[in-house]
């Protein structure tokens, strides 16, 4: 369902830029969706249970938190950055979710605190990158470590408390077989998809990432756009952390571990270029879907779990090298 939606958005944005599109462009734009279909077909043939409603629902529920982070990561990568602090932000959001009384009346306060925390982290990242000219890798690595230390100090290493029932519902329940968290993800994908692919802000993001000199020449403040992208990424990561805390139910200090690299990998596999200025949200979401499908398929087919990361590693390199080729 998410895929159908993603395709819709992709078609819409492709329609806008269709004039004079070359074959290689088409390959770059739709190759990922083709790859996704092939992956799903292969998995289904190897393990028929792969396409059972229960398994699909299961995969979609796993997809939602990753996809939300990937949307934010896409904004940052588009402006030639990358954000290693997302997993730390997610874990901090999860800890915040359990720091109140665990009742639904706390939900708005938790959400507000998380948005402020995520936004502030993004702001710090953005300022370090633009004003101090620190490389994004280092800036976000540093905020990741600082946030982790603060979180550990606040929880004394052992977080306790409950996640409010509302977040439990959003994170782990389904309505007519569709996970609530997928609906949240879909809403966020549409809102930020419109912001990136239909609004003036989105065009500025692409100009800034494609060529910052041009951005400056046409009188845009590239710095402000870049900071905004990091803030968006921080806020989305915090939201994903809340959703994931509802899925997991109990919180430790490492909710979201691995999401920083998975989200970058998903975006790159979905055609978002690390060199900036190229890539779309539908593509990145397809990349996230492939990651989830592959991890699930390895288990469904009955291979050892350790093969998950081996397969993931190989696919990362292969997918990324395909984009380099088409870009030439």
């Amino acid at each position, binding site marked *: 369902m998410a895929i159908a939606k993603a395709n819709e958005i992709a078609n819409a944005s492709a329609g806008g830029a269709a004039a004079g599109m070359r074959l290689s462009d088409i390959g770059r734009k739709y190759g990922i969706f083709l790859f996704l279909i092939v992956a799903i077909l292969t998995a289904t043939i190897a393990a028929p249970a792969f396409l059972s409603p229960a398994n699909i629902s299961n995969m979609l529920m796993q997809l939602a938190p990753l996809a939300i982070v990937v949307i934010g990561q896409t904004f940052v990568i588009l402006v030639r950055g990358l954000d290693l602090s997302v997993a730390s932000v997610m874990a901090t959001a999860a800890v915040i979710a359990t720091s109140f009384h665990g009742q639904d009346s706390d939900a708005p306060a938790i959400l507000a605190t998380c948005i402020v925390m995520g936004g502030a982290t993004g702001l710090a990242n953005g300022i370090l990158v633009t004003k101090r000219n620190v490389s994004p890798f280092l800036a976000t*690595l540093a905020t990741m470590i600082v946030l*982790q230390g603060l979180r550990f100090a606040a929880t004394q290493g052992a977080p306790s408390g409950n996640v409010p029932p509302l977040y439990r519902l959003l994170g782990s329940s389904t309505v007519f077989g569709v996970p609530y968290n997928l609906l949240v993800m879909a809403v966020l994908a549409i809102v930020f998809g419109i912001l990136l692919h239909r609004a003036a802000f989105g065009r500025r993001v692409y100009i800034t990432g494609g060529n910052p000199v041009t951005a400056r020449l046409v009188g845009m403040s590239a710095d402000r756009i870049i900071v905004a992208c990091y803030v968006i990424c921080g806020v989305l990561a915090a939201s994903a952390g809340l959703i994931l805390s509802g899925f997991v139910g109990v919180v430790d200090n490492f909710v979201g571990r691995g999401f920083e690299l998975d989200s970058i*990998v998903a975006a790159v596999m979905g055609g978002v270029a690390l060199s900036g200025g190229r890539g779309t949200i539908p593509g990145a979401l397809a990349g996230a879907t492939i990651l989830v499908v592959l991890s699930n398929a390895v288990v469904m087919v009955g291979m050892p779990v350790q093969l998950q990361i081996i397969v993931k590693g190989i696919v990362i390199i292969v997918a990324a090298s395909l984009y380099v080729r088409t870009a030439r």
Partner: protein
Amino acid sequence: MNGVSAKMGSFFSGPRTGLLVVLCLLLLLFIFGVAVSDRFATTRNILNVYEQSTGLALVSLGQTLTVLTGGIDLSVGSVISVTAMMVSGLINGDPSMVTPVIAGALVLGLLIGAANGGIVILTGVHPLIVTLGTGAVIQGAALLYSLGPIGKVPKGFDYFAYGRLPGGLSIGATFTVILFLLAAFLLGRTRMGRYIYAVGDDPHAATLMGLPKTRVILLVYTLSGMFAALTGIYLVSRFGVGQPYTGANYTLSSITPVVVGGTMLAGGRGGVMGTLLGVYLVSLLNNLLNFLDVSTHIQLVAQGLVIIAAVSVYVEKRRIA
């Protein structure tokens, strides 16, 4: 940037400013340590810090070389883990296996590094993504080999980690310093060293000048893989057994000393002696925080702030225009 020649001025091959900054930080930290704790500045403690810095120093040495070319090696943690498991798993307490297995582990590191470099060259994919991918594959292989600690080493294997020279200097740490001096010589006094800086400074120009970019990239990743393997061997020597996640934390922590020591992530500027001082700075900082009874949680915060402080002092080569 006055070109390559200016960087070659010093034997230590780094821009002097970078070395100066980290030296000043070290000195400040030392003075602060002396002021707040009377146990800090004892010979015994300083020798311990020297000994404990070995692992981080070894892996950061290789990382510095890849970063100098504008790349990065995120597979080091997995390489450390897999070689550590291989060493303790294959030796399994048999003294006669020590030499062949250690040689095998170093070769494995070399081969993985060469594969990293080869894939970077052949595919043109950013090293960050390539080494992330190979790192995942190697970690998976390590977990396939064993899900927990495996094997054991014979008596005396801890000599590398805990042995002391006359005067109390750690054998492993001193061996590591010699490796750093050799790397500094490579970077500062050989043609290959100049090529490494040139490729990192401007890969496009390096190609136009006909520099052997392929050989440079292959060399730095191969060395990085080998130093990671050496770190794995060191960790087995220190802990007595190899575990599947023993190197996991080293992937990102190997980058801190590199940048604190003045090597720019953008490539082309910095040097290994700065990294060595960066390693000592990080080790001394953690040691001092231990003396101050600061919780390990706050130690993390301090480490993050040191990164921010250090990189804010150095101005990175402008990424944008």
